[in-house]
């Protein structure tokens, strides 16, 4: 008996969580996929009606806006957060004094919830309360900074707040990566008289490729599931100019009683996540098999 237990203990311990994940993650993905093929309105129905919800989804100008916003927000957020995080990490890596203190300062925004970040930035960017009125108060009467209330630019305010929140975290990731590069190689390069910037671009950064991938995956999924930041900062407005797929899905499922439509948009969101995560998993698994 005890021998059997010894052999099977890992499986026994893992089984409950395995079953829970199977039901609550994959089971409900399947359920959502099913519902997205029905005409469900207020309550879910199970009679399959084909791809009508997807047709409605792609005919909807609001969904168009949401998807475009996801591209704009996702691309800018990931690129700027990575560039800024890397720059901060490299600067911090110059063996400066009080590094621990500065690192904490940059990391702290991560400790705030997105709701707090969104609300604070809403006040900072509000033309009547924040930057615009302050600068005008200094005597620059023509100064305008109304991105928050301008439908064409509102999405960029979300990028700003999200970058502010996350770049410190990306910095910490990169800093760990920088520290893990073999010091001997760098010393050898220095002995050869290679300039510092070349050491970074040719040796250190290429050797951090896995860190880049991790940072990308973390930021990408943050971007796709972004919801609370939009709700707190713009409420999806002006109009629906800053809608993202997640807020679209919420509006359909919970405000409008259009569950089929919400399920279809959720499936599309999942496909976008898959498009990013599957290549990553594939490369990870292949690396192990080799």
């Amino acid at each position: 008996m005890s021998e059997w237990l010894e052999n099977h203990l890992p499986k026994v311990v893992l089984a409950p969580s395995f079953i829970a994940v199977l039901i609550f993650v994959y089971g409900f993905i399947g359920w959502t996929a099913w519902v997205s093929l029905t005409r469900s309105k207020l309550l879910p129905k199970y009679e399959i009606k084909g791809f009508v919800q997807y047709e409605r989804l792609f005919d909807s100008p609001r969904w168009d806006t949401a998807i475009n916003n996801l591209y704009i927000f996702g691309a800018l957020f990931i690129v700027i957060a990575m560039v800024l995080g890397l720059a901060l990490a490299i600067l911090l890596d110059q063996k400066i004094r009080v590094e621990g203190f500065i690192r904490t300062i940059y990391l702290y925004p991560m400790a705030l919830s997105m709701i707090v970040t969104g609300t604070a930035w809403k006040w900072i960017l509000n033309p009547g309360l924040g930057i615009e009125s302050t600068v005008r108060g200094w005597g620059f009467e023509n100064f305008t900074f109304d991105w928050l209330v301008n439908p064409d630019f509102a999405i960029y305010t979300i990028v700003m707040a999200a970058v502010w929140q996350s770049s410190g975290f990306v910095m910490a990731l990169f800093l760990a990566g920088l520290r893990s590069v073999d010091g001997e190689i760098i010393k050898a390069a220095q002995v050869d008289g290679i300039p510092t910037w070349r050491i970074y671009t040719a040796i250190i950064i290429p050797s951090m490729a896995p860190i880049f991938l991790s940072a990308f995956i973390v930021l990408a999924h943050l971007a796709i599931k972004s919801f609370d930041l939009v709700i707190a900062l713009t409420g999806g407005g002006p109009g629906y100019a800053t809608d993202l797929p997640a807020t679209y899905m919420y509006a359909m499922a919970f405000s409008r009683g259009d569950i089929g439509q919400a399920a279809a948009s959720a499936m599309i969101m999942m496909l976008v996540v898959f498009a990013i995560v599957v290549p990553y998993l594939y490369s990870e698994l292949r690396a192990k098999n080799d």
Partner: protein
Amino acid sequence: MKRFAFATASSLAVLAASSVMAEPQAEVLHWWTSGGEAKSVAVLQEEFAANGGTWTDMPVAGGGGDAAMTALRARVLAGNAPTAVQLKGPAIQEWYEEGVLADISNVAEAEGWDKVLPASIAAHMKCEGTWCAAPVNVHRVDWIWANADVLAANGIEMPTTWDEFNAAAEKLQAAGVIPLAHGGQAWQDATVFETVVLGLGGPEFYNKALVELDPEALTSDTMVKVFDQMRTLRGFVDENFSGRDWNLATAMVMNGEAAFQIMGDWAKGEFLAAGKEPGKDFLCASTPGDGYLYNVDSFAMFDVEGDDKRAGQELLAKLIVAPKFQEVFNLNKGSIPARTDVSLDKFDMCAKISAEDMATSSENGSLLPSYAHGMALRGAQAGAITDVVTAHFNSDMSSQEAVQQLADAVANSY
């Protein structure tokens, strides 16, 4: 442990007692959780208890009822619906179609609801001829509020046509006053939009366009004019309106920063709470044009099992529509009673105007459901229209384009 045992024992005792006596039980799901609203519900709760009932309160705050609807969906799917739920308009019919509403016709007939409720409001409370919900109040949506001093200082009368309103607004703008206090949230844009549809198109057009969703009406020249007027109104709103809450816009009228606000009569509560007097400090009038847009809160009765719950449901329905509760509740909430035979002595002048207009408009058929507040259309259709309205208001979209998008969005919402 001891306390737990005691609690279990006593709750078992209560259960045993209630199953013997079948005393009225009601579990009520609502989202009236803020100041004046919570007070209003407490009135009902006390009356229910005074009549020997046991009230189980189930307040779910947040999201203008979204959170409560999520809770309701979960309860219904689990086969354990609350006794009564704060629901309104077509949502009642939607739930009825899911086959989960109860029939309270015996109460309604015994109490003569048909005689005291305006016909179009009574129609919302019926599901295929049987009564399935009880109305609590009538909010009027098409109100225009004004700061009396600002109007007097600029020599402006309360406008009775949209042209008059535009002329007055231009004058105010020249004098450095914000003509229209508005909050840039989708539902507020929709509120202004529906009053413009009613004002420019008239009750019949409103009914065709926003109740029957007739594609011809939606793409008509009148609708183009409505969007033109929305564009004009956009020019009367201050720069900083995006995302502003409605009560902050009301405050702008109160302190003279702005002259007008278009908002339902819950705005009156803000004025009164700040110690302002109707007729003296602030003015109320219906928005330019004929007709009356109502927003009626009601409790839908869900199918429940057990005599005690059925008894509770019937008692609750009776109390909600009874004159006493209708008076007390609506004095607290700023709306007017749904039944027409309640004395209005204790109500203010705006409420009296509202009640009078409700009676006349009920007679001439211009008593209409508000689309922006979920009375006229189902969620998906109303949402589709609101999307277009708010997109137009917040961009430089042309009126023709807006009209086309409106028709497309409605067609795509089924």
